[in-house]
């Protein structure tokens, strides 16, 4: 969570905005990102297994059969 300076500007927003203005290369993955990615890899297989168990059968036919009229 970014810390805010008085006046409402965010530390991270300033630094991020400055980076973009300078068009600096993307920063190396932070520890937070690395840790998250490791945890995600473990979780993802499990997650996809569960999703597989609820996905409609015959994806092609199902997706083709989903035809809507415009609305609004």
């Amino acid at each position, binding site marked *: *969570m*970014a810390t*805010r300076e008085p*006046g*409402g*500007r*965010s530390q*991270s*927003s300033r630094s*991020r*905005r400055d980076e*973009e203005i300078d068009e600096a290369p993307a*920063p190396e*993955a*932070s520890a*937070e*990102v690395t840790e*998250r*990615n490791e945890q*995600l890899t473990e*979780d*993802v*297989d499990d*997650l*996809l297994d*569960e*999703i597989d168990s*609820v*996905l*409609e059968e015959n*994806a*092609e036919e*199902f*997706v*083709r*059969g*989903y*035809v*809507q*009229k*415009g*609305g*609004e």
Partner: protein
Amino acid sequence: MSVRRVIGTEVEYGVSVPGQPGANPMVTSSQVVNAYGARPELTRGGRARWDYEEESPLRDARGFSYSGALYDPAEALADEDLGLANVILTNGARLYVDHAHPEYSTPEVTNPRDLVLWDKAGERVMAEASRRAATIPGSHPIHLYKNNTDNKGASYGAHENYLMRRSTPFADIVVHLTPFFVTRQIVCGAGRVGIGQDGSTPGFQISQRADFFEVEVGLETTLKRPIINTRDEPHSDADKYRRLHVIIGDANVSEISTYLKVGTTSLVLAMIEEKALPGDLGIADPVTELKAVSHDPSLKHLIRMRDGRRLSALDIQWAFYERARAFAEARRGDDSAEEITFDVLNRWESVLDRLGRDPGLCADELDWVAKLRLLEGYRERESLGWASHKLQLVDLQYSDVRPEKGLYHRLVARGAMKTLFADDEVRRAMVEPPDDTRAYFRGRCLAQYASEVVAASWDSVIFDVGRESLVRVPMMEPERGTRKHVGALFDRCASAKDLLEAITSG
């Protein structure tokens, strides 16, 4: 000035009967709505009709009435004549058939938190409606999806409505909202597999709707869709208010996406009304940039501004955020929804910060990121290309309203997606209206006096209490008819007749 504002959403749901390609969507949608409308608390003594008296969807916010032939002004009435289903719920919402989709319009609420709650209640109403429709002997299961396209060229809407001061010049709204709407999708996009209106170009994009927008400003909603829609039909005192009808948003299932969508938009509208924005964020070609932003989930695309600068969607969102933060800080203590205002600001800041570092950090909060995480997982594990039918199915089924089948719901059940409300709160909002708008009056009338309510609309309730003529109670002020105003009256009046006598004698 804050996020506090009378708001509501209206969402058209995708409707499908698997294995029955010939099913008529108007009939199917009516079956869904009628199945829910057959609930006993809504049918005592017959069902209330929708009252179209004050509807004028062709009035234009720029000050003229539309007289083109593309749109039939009698359409709403014709829908009624066809017997298309239309139910007013005890929570103050409207559940009906709009063209070929079942649609749920939330009751009027006064803040983004309540909006999420009653919008979520609508999803639950739809799930319950399709479950009930399936129990009718001989019927086929009807699936409902809270999304915006069939990926074959058709799009249907998820509209937001914001009550605004009539005195605010419409031109100001256009100037400031356009860059905001082009870029807010990085926060509240729902994610889509497929590029182009028919989705035929393989790829992933941030928004369901971006590819369907063709002009900057206009009255249409079904063709030549505009970034800023000019429909001006306030359903309230037209001298005091306008209802800003926003058609560009995606239908969100993530509570945080919905919350930030309406919360940040409310803040920007507050700044527009107070003339607190400098107007330095004009985009050179908004329609093209809308699509370019959507087509770039890396968030690196640089938008060409009118003044020649090149800014990312994140830069523009940061600029709006910083101004909103300063605006709200300067008004601390003068905001009846202060807690929610600052909660919206804190979450907005946090999301922008994480999107800037690695969008994946928002996978447990934002729809498009959550969806992309699933898709990337499959792409890697099963070496799938973006044209894969399985990926298209994941995209579609993410928005399935059924708790046991909807992928969003499966993520929530695993603790992989954050929510704002507990299940029982959403269930309660399916039947109970918000306390602090005229929806309270409408909802309690339906809950308590269903047999005496002949019709209702956003700004009226019509009773038959056995007099020679019907009695129409106008509700032109959206913030009147609240629990505070009339709660005790409802507690004490056993019939609508008693209520009307109490109102007219008081």
